[in-house]
């Protein structure tokens, strides 16, 4: 089980690193991320509080970039027919999905690794508060994993990478917007929308709070999306 998942994970990461798109995304990630880091330094002017602001922004930036990463994961295998090789090998569908999920997440965390550079800069010139930074990164992993689980579910439904990417972007945008409009809505609707928003659960993490209710929220969304992806793959109707 673990070996099979890990084989798929390794393959996914390898294919990401040879894909042209991955480097374009990295370029945008560093460009926009670097620019905002610079902006926060000038606006906040307090080394202890810069990183939490930046991590919040990272959550926003990543929902724009993740669809471009997840769009190929299943769609490309379906288009090229290699999915047939995976599904006729002695692997179970859940191993394939978990392997791909893990591979995509680990690959994205390589991007995030580049932001440690900002931490080094901050430590050199000031005293960043590492508590909220560590919980912030932890929260970010949950948030990003949630984005990726949405992307995989949509990717398994289409063989067209562009469609896969755009629909994922719209889906993630939807969960961002409901959090944003929830503050303008009355009563229970506000609570429901606010609860469903991916980003609202992330904020506490960047403030240094680890609340199990947020972790449970993220794990249930991830679990549901991966479960649906596995079922769709087992059903095969989405594959042929």
């Amino acid at each position, binding site marked *: 089980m673990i*070996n*099979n998942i890990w*084989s*798929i994970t*390794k*393959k996914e990461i*390898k*294919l990401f690193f*040879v*894909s042209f798109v991955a480097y374009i995304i990295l370029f945008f990630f560093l460009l926009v991320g670097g620019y905002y880091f610079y902006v926060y330094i000038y606006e906040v002017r307090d080394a202890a509080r810069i990183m939490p602001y930046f991590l919040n922004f990272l959550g926003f930036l990543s929902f724009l970039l993740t669809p471009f990463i997840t769009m190929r994961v299943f769609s490309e295998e379906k288009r*090229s*027919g*290699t*999915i*047939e*090789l*995976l*599904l*006729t*090998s*002695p*692997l*179970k569908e859940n191993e394939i999905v978990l392997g791909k999920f893990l591979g995509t997440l680990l690959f994205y965390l390589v991007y995030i690794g580049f932001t440690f550079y900002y931490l080094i800069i901050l430590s050199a010139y000031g005293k960043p508060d590492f508590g909220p930074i560590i919980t912030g990164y932890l929260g970010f992993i949950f948030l990003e994993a949630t984005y990726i689980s949405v992307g995989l579910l949509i990717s398994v439904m289409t063989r067209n990478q562009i469609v896969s990417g755009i629909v994922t972007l719209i889906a993630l945008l939807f969960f961002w917007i409901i959090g944003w409009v929830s503050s303008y809505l009355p009563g229970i609707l506000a609570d429901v929308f606010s609860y469903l928003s991916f980003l609202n659960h992330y904020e506490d993490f960047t403030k240094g709070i680890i609340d199990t209710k947020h972790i449970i929220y993220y794990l249930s969304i991830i679990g549901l999306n991966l479960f649906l992806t596995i079922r769709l793959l087992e059903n*095969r109707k989405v594959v*042929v």
Partner: protein
Amino acid sequence: MIEVKNVSKYYGKVKAVDNISFNVDKGEIVGFLGPNGAGKTTTMRVLTGFLSATEGSIKIGDHDIVENPVEAKKMIGYLPENVPLYFEMNVTDYLGFFADIKGINKSEKSGHIRQIIGKVGLKKVADTIIGKLSKGFRQRVGIAQALIGEPDILILDEPTIGLDPNQIIEIRNLIKELGKEKTVILSSHILQEVSALCSRIIIISEGKVVAIDTKEDLMEKLEVGQRIKILTDSDHKKVANKMKEVKGVKHVDLVRKEGSLSEIMVSSEKEKDIRKDLSKMMITSGFNLLEQSKVTMSLEDVFIKLTGKN
């Protein structure tokens, strides 16, 4: 080795495979013959567990493909139609990935891959990116992938389609070589290919099995004689009358007449080579022999013979 019992497969309401049953014994090379859309690919996809049958059961070795898919799939090496590949990987990495997911031990992995690369003739391109390989090499990579893990059964869907004639001969020889140690099922829409490679032939049309027979019995049933096309500008009636006198000739038909040119089709009795006698007769009788060529039996002819319908 393989036991297929009353298998049907529907796509929605369309019946792609209709109540197929057959067995394949260890060491056999069995050919699926049928026109495009006959249900060959669907049958192979059901055999390999890529798709599940709507009805019926399939046993690979002792394992039911539905109840025990992992064990059944371990016994099968599969080359799907159109040879899907990860174009960005090099050949060795590609095969390495399949060694991983087929559960090859780390210690045996590189030796196993090297051996297969040698067997299918990929040594020269072992470190080349697959996207840069020619179609013939890609086909070999696909076959190499099927061989990883030393499965007892090889299932090859249209293994020579889209290749040039030299590549076709190379791949056919490779399959023949592999057939010495493995059970092979391959599909094709070319009669010559199946009869050159396979000991047993399953003919399939519109999702149904039309015939299952050894190559020899099938050829017998088909009464394959020679068919010779003759082009002449002499009087076709006189030519035809003379032709009928040649030993071994069964039928003489006028196919086409354009001006003074006549195209005549001559059929021989079973396994008689009438080419020499025919051309000798044309010349000694003073007719003009403009062209003489052998016509190979097409799949359509086979179906008309076997099913009796056009």
